[in-house]
């Protein structure tokens, strides 16, 4: 046990049934500051469900989730104030421009945040799309808009569901760099991915779902 490092998120004995399917049985997850945790498994084995269960977005049958030592029910607002979750659904309304979408998703950005957003989108190579309707963006571009939140928002806990989906090599290198930076600054990351993802400077623990335990 790492005594000095703060335990951020802890799940004890998570058991999830979906119909007659036992997705996970008595699963324990611990996430300290600086940890990077990868959840692996085949399609439909419950990776997304586990991620969502950890942050109160999916129901589970048994077990408990703690944030900074407090049970989820009491710590919910504290957790959400420090959480950045990028899910399957991008959270991007097709009727709004990327800038308007980002403003909705990041309420902490001031109204005149345009320059900041442009700077981050520039890094991701899509700043020229900032005023186009989001309906006109490709899947990869939407993903990049979403990923810009990794830089625009302050959050200690990152929960990333398939962050590399529809990204090219350059995009996934950027994500890897962000995760490395976040972890080395004391943040925690949980993510799922199909692609093999290797990190040079940080150690990644893995949880294998779907019978392989």
């Amino acid at each position, binding site marked *: 046990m790492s005594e000095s490092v703060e335990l951020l998120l802890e799940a004890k004995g998570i058991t999830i049934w979906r119909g007659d399917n036992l997705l996970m049985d008595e699963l324990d997850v611990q996430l300290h500051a600086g940890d990077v945790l990868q959840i692996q498994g085949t399609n439909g084995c419950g990776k997304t469900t586990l991620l969502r269960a950890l942050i109160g977005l999916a129901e589970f049958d048994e077990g408990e989730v703690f944030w900074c030592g407090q049970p989820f029910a009491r710590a919910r607002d504290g957790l*959400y104030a420090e959480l950045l*979750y990028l*899910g399957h659904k991008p*959270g991007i309304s097709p009727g*709004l421009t990327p800038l308007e979408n980002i403003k909705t998703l990041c*309420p902490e950005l001031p109204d005149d945040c345009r320059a900041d957003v442009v*700077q981050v989108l520039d890094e991701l190579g899509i700043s020229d799309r900032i005023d186009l309707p989001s309906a006109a963006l490709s899947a990869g571009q939407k993903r990049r808009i979403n990923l810009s939140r990794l830089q625009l928002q302050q959050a200690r806990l990152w929960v990333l569901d398939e962050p590399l989906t529809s990204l090219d090599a350059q995009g996934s290198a950027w994500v890897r760099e962000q995760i490395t930076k976040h972890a080395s600054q004391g943040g925690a990351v949980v993510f799922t991915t199909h692609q093999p993802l290797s990190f040079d400077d940080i150690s990644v623990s893995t949880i294998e779902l779907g019978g392989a335990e």
Partner: protein
Amino acid sequence: MSDSSHPPRTDISLSRVFWRVYRRDLTLAMRSVGQWLNTLFFFVIVVSLFPLGIGPGPQTLATIAPGIIWVSALLSMMLSLDSLFAHDFNDGTLEQLVISGQPLSVIVIAKVLAHWSTGGLPLVLLSPLLALVMQMPSSAYGVLVISLAIGTLSLSFIGAIGAALIVSVNQGGVLLSLLVLPLTVPVLIFGSGAVSSSSMGLPISTQISVLAAVLALAVSLAPLAIAAALRVGVSVGR
């Protein structure tokens, strides 16, 4: 780096949270004009069909006018409720709002008020014109507008509870009417009652008071119910 220049999410003022969401929803509504015009046209068409169907006898029309206008307003509001949370649920914005760390009830109030601004307010503003079509005495116009303004706002809040409850249900439209319509009956009764009394020259303070009381109740309690329903909705649907 840009990370450090922004305040943590706990320091955001409620008015910022409110206006962000309100302005966003209005922008979205303005860009899909068809959606809220649909509500308005439905209201206008239903009301103006009655003189054609019943015949233009001013006496008959004036008697039934309050009820007709009120029922049409109620149904138009129902029509637009379906989409109140559905789009945001489908594109994932809703779950992001739920976990944004901001008070969900404030977000919900902003969304409901934006819904009323595009779905309710136009009905209220147009109602005197329809009252004219329905041969209502002009002395009752003021009461019609006031009762509709209070009533449709209550309907938005009450209806949003239903819309939030069915947010993860596919094709929940029928369920929505079943859930919400019974709750809207008091608003309908006292709303159309106020207009009827006023066109007969009777006092209306009782009905308006009851309408206002319903609104106060809806504004204060509905956001909590809506927020709770949305939390369940996003954790059930995927």
